[in-house]
């Protein structure tokens, strides 16, 4: 099993009356709430936590992209990836991912990812994503073109990495006379590619056919992961090969402390700040972003989404987060990882308002327990 430390870099200071006054932590949440002085401390603290992951022996660190929200204050994960490329020496740097339709032209992604790969000496994992529903409101990019823009951009980025330039790209959404990005990535033929998915059949088939990695989008009930990972393995078989466990990643909030009771006492309020405040408004379905037929399925799965969890019991039953003593955490991770058949565990060790001291204690305890063991 490979262990990754994933950071969302959340905003931890929403007003006490947020729940009553605001319908969403996304897109429309007034940015007057963002305090740049506190942001200065927060960004540096969060980066330190990812650097700590290398010191503790983790295999990699993960960052991702979201815009105009309090859930994750990382509109440019590539900036974070670039900093980590210099501040770490060994870990994989997984940027999962760049929301391709938001980059114009998307050759920008080929360039920036190649820069991170070259600076880090080939340690980049390149995540390619469609972007979340809120992003289509925040960027006013037409969601009815989301899928076709993603596919065109993905092909273009791969071609830019693997085919000698300059060449012409003449697509539906972009027309580029001279595609010839400098630098080229160190990893050949191109960096490892991970694509996150929330169970859409189209995404599963695409990732299986191209032999990329499939990362399950979190906050759904554990049964939802199980179903999607089974579907992925099946899709790989249909493509004539058996999926490697390293093609699958399970992203999950983790908190470990001395005892189960202490873990819950320390963690609970921070977890629910995340579940009830920061997740509020994450799932929106802009028109055309999802096929009409899959909206019904998503609607159903949302009934068992983390934001609906009210108690410790709900969390444990859905395995929305793994919380407890070292023995509990170790046993649960072993059990679920086996059930899901995953080779990558992407742990969220900081969540919501979880402060620096508890985050470090959590990561250190977890590393002693699992990492390198």
């Amino acid at each position: 099993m490979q262990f990754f430390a994933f950071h969302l870099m959340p905003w931890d200071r929403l007003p006490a009356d947020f729940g009553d006054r605001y319908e969403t932590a996304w897109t429309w949440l007034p940015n007057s709430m963002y305090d740049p002085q506190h942001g200065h401390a927060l960004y540096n603290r969060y980066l330190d936590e990812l650097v700590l992951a290398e010191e503790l022996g983790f295999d990699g660190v993960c960052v991702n992209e979201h815009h105009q929200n309090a859930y994750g204050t990382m509109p440019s994960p590539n900036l974070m990836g670039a900093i980590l490329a210099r501040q770490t020496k060994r870990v994989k740097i997984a940027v999962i991912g760049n929301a391709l339709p938001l980059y114009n032209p998307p050759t920008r992604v080929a360039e920036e990812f190649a820069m991170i790969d070259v600076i880090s000496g080939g340690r980049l994992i390149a995540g390619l994503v469609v972007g979340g529903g809120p992003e289509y409101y925040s960027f006013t990019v037409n969601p009815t073109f989301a899928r076709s823009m993603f596919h065109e951009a993905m092909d273009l980025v791969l071609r830019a990495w693997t085919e000698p330039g300059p060449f012409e790209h003449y697509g539906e959404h972009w027309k580029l006379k001279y595609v010839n990005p400098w630098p080229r990535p160190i990893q050949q033929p191109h960096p490892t590619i991970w694509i996150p998915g929330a169970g859409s059949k189209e995404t599963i088939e695409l990732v299986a056919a191209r032999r990329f990695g499939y990362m399950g989008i979190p906050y759904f009930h554990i049964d939802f992961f199980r179903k999607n990972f089974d579907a992925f393995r099946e899709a790989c078989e249909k493509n004539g090969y058996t999926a490697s466990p390293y093609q699958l990643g399970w992203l999950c909030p983790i908190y470990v402390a001395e005892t189960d009771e202490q873990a819950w006492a320390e963690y609970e309020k921070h977890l629910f700040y995340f579940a009830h405040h920061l997740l509020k408004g994450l799932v929106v379905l802009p028109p055309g972003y999802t096929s009409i037929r899959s909206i019904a399925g998503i609607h159903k799965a949302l009934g068992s989404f983390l934001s609906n969890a009210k108690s410790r019991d709900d969390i444990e039953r859905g395995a929305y987060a793994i919380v407890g003593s070292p023995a509990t955490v170790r046993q649960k991770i072993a059990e679920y990882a086996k059930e899901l058949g995953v080779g990558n565990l992407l742990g969220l060790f900081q969540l919501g308002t979880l402060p620096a001291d508890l985050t470090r204690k959590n990561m250190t305890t977890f590393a002693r327990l699992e990492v390198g063991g």
Partner: protein
Amino acid sequence: MKTTFHEIRGRRTQVTVGGDGPPLVYLHSAGGETQWAPFHAMLAERFTVYLPAHPGFDSSEGLETIRDIQDLAWHYIDLFAELKLSAVPVVGFSLGAWIACEMSVLRPQLASKLVLTAAAGLHVPGSPMAELFIDDLAKLRKLLFFDPAGPAVNEAMPESLDDPRIYLWLKAREATARVGWNPYLHNPRLRQHLWRIAQPALVLWGRQDKLIPLTHGEAYARELPNARLEVIENCGHMVPWEKPAEFAEAAVRFLRDE
């Protein structure tokens, strides 16, 4: 009335026709009122009403080849030719009124007179259109109607995601977003062409339209060379649903007498 299908340059297009009298074309809104509604019936007392469904709405196909509002305008130019319609009155509501304008800029002879009801299509500085693409149907009802508890509301739109009409509603939403997401429900270059629409036009608006404020109606009435604005009181954006009699009377009076 009768529903038939026509191949319009490769797009299978649903057209419902009903009523008696000279032809009239009704171009529907983002809400997709493609099933015969009370206000269609009222117009059909005096006219033979042609009610086509735009590509991607109801059983009309071909949204894949629609990229923007001008593609829709050309679709209607082709549809008018196929149905042998020319110099006929065109009644448009919201998205449909916007299409009627775009089509008339390109082919002024197709519409003899225009009824533009709560028309999308313009950007009016300081008077933004509200967000139509929200998931919350209760909020949407408040946005679209003067009286969100009125009798027409449940006829006009699904009650919840479990309503069987939700499938057509989601299709309509997607087909609207295709041409109306960005720029938002307007064409920045339409205004500079409105002088080309010289035929008589009635601009009909609900006083309390919260989606497309009345200032947009005033802008249309000002920029169109031969237009008059009529405001319906105690009425939101959904004029034909909320005030069907006033809507149909105003349209018929204008089309027959003026």
